[in-house]
């Protein structure tokens, strides 16, 4: 068995205690915007060092400035707003739900997303079109909204990202596992993914499911027009997925909601077993969910363990 292993960290990374304090202080008028910017820069540099140390294959800025997964997209568009706080699935954390208030039109992603000082190869994280359409505050047909948000927001955002050196587009999709999907919505979801696949050109596209068991959707998922499907193995049992998998697999094997750091040896052994059973065409290694909710003490340990697990896995495979 010979398979390359690509490791990276997706999603929002937790802010350090110093940055937490700085962002609190600036809201209370106790520090300056410049001081907060400096704190953001320090956190980004620290996260970059951790990823380098862990020898990850693609590098992220940790989305440290993102207030939630949707906010920079909403703020970069006309016709979208974000006010109401909504619980982020079954977590003690909340996001401001995007709300269409006109025809969504994208301008451009802010400079701090595109020119973030992170070396290539860069990984970008965006909401999946299905998540985006379901998390929105909206009374109309959500499949139509999915098509609109894909064409009007995600496609131009991906174009911005590609132009500035991002060559992995990681799409977060927790809605499918947590809430499921109506049969009629699969075709619009697949169509949206085809549009994004085309927009991404030769970039790698990953659709990453988490916060629920997606084994019942395994057959549809593996036919999605992406390079790999991400599976959170803390929610989905590998033995319940269809084999052979027939496409790429992102093994989500570090639990972003637990404070215990998984042993790299156990992880690599587990993933080797999954690979043997599912025979994916390519293999990516990452956390099951992003690491934001694991907090600043735990997340660095998980990223380092991710790097070690990838190294061990390369030896095994």
């Amino acid at each position: 068995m010979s398979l390359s292993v690509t490791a990276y960290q997706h999603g929002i990374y937790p802010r350090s205690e110093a940055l937490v304090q700085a962002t609190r202080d600036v809201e209370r008028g106790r520090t300056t915007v410049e001081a907060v910017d400096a704190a953001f820069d320090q956190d980004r540099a620290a996260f970059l060092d951790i990823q380098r140390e862990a020898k990850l294959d693609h590098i992220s800025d940790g989305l440290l400035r993102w207030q939630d997964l949707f906010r920079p997209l909403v703020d970069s568009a006309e016709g979208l707003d974000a006010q109401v706080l909504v619980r982020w699935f079954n977590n003690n954390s909340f996001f401001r739900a995007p709300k269409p208030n006109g025809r969504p039109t994208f301008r451009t992603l802010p400079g701090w997303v595109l020119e973030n000082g992170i070396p290539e190869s860069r990984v970008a994280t965006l909401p999946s079109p299905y998540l985006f359409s379901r998390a929105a505050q909206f009374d109309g047909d959500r499949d139509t909204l999915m098509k609109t948000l894909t064409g009007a927001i995600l496609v131009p955002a991906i174009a911005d990202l590609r132009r500035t050196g991002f060559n992995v587009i990681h799409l977060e999709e927790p809605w499918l596992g947590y809430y499921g999907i109506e049969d009629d919505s699969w075709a619009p979801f697949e169509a949206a993914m085809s549009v994004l696949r085309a927009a991404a050109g030769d970039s790698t596209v990953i659709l990453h499911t988490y916060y629920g068991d997606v084994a019942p959707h395994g057959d549809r998922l593996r036919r999605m027009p992406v390079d790999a499907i991400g599976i959170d193995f803390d929610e989905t049992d590998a033995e319940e997925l269809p084999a052979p998998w027939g496409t790429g697999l992102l093994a989500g094997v570090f639990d972003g909601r637990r404070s215990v750091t998984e042993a790299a040896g156990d992880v690599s052994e587990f993933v080797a077993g999954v690979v043997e059973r599912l025979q994916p065409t390519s293999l990516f290694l990452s956390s099951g969910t992003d690491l934001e909710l694991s907090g600043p003490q735990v997340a660095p340990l998980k990223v380092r363990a991710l790097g070690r697990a990838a190294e061990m896995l390369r030896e095994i495979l």
Partner: protein
Amino acid sequence: MKGGSSLLSKPLLTHELGSLAKPNWRVKAIAGRPIEDEDIAEARSWGRRLGVDGHEGLLKLLGSGPLDADGKAEVKRWSSRYGVRLLETVGLDVVYDGEQQRSEMYAWAIDHADGFEWRGSVRAFDNKYYSKAAVTGPISLRVPYHNEEFELMRDFARVDLKVPITGAYTIADWSFDERYYTEADRAAHGWRKRRRDARQTFIVDVARNLIRPNLEALIGLGAKWLQIDEPGGSTSPQELDLFVESFNESVRGLDAVFSTHLCFSDYNLFFPAIEGMTECRQFAVGFANYDSRELGTSSEARPGYAVLPKFRDLPYEPVLGIGVLDIHTDFVEPAELVRDRILHSVEVFSDPARIHVIPDCGLRTRSWEVAYAKLENMVAGVGLAKQSLGI
């Protein structure tokens, strides 16, 4: 203090739900920051307005420079006295101190428990964060953590008291688990059941070993009505049975009135699970946040209260505390709007004795000025409703 049961049956009884904002003079004094003239002026102004006896002592204390531990403790006690008097002055039937002694509802409990270790800040939203702990050892109560404040209130308050306490489910849900669901469980066959069993054991341990001893201590000091706060109660709809079990394990067989506070959720999710919460004599629930600001008593006029029939039909017939004040906004609900929300609820229940009137949640995010105006109008709205109902 009256018996909790007789108090509970008073039609359209009014009470608060817990936290008030902490005054600047309290925050600065505890943080060791300089007290400005305007802080002392604020303490003077509210002290006079609320008729806080001896508040000149507070002014002197605040003006005496950096405070030692005893001085800070005394400032906190003053803050509690001010909180109680504010709630009494607006005319509430049942009060507490606006949680002026506590750091925060989760952190306060964890800081007085054994078996937990802090794991740093986790973001709640935007630039708001909370400190999150992990359970790492056997859970126990280090020291009853509401006794001191209750004794202070018991001797100071002029009306009846209700003690708010963070519930077991919320404490467990807001903590990491490093003890119950192990790496061995995670790797084993049947991991889903193991995870569920571990979760249940964790939650029940918090109920039995942390919350219940606290309740017993308070009851021993004379507390009659204890409100279990569960903002995390509906976080996971799949775990509502565990939420109910945690409440029952916390209160079973204890001699007091127990209520629970739920807020900012899809309340439909709680049914039918809370049919098993038979020891809960009152549900205090936020509704105004979801309601229209237009007047009217019909169901159409009151969309935020659509779930009322489900609470009405609970077999053990609990009282429902209806939230009539939106705590997220400075909008001061007119007394007539409060009245209409009450009249609609009474009509649904066909019994004013099963309706209490409350804010949606604690008013800690509002200034004291706004909180005062809102609560004052709430009490005025109750008066209008009573007039209309002839009671």
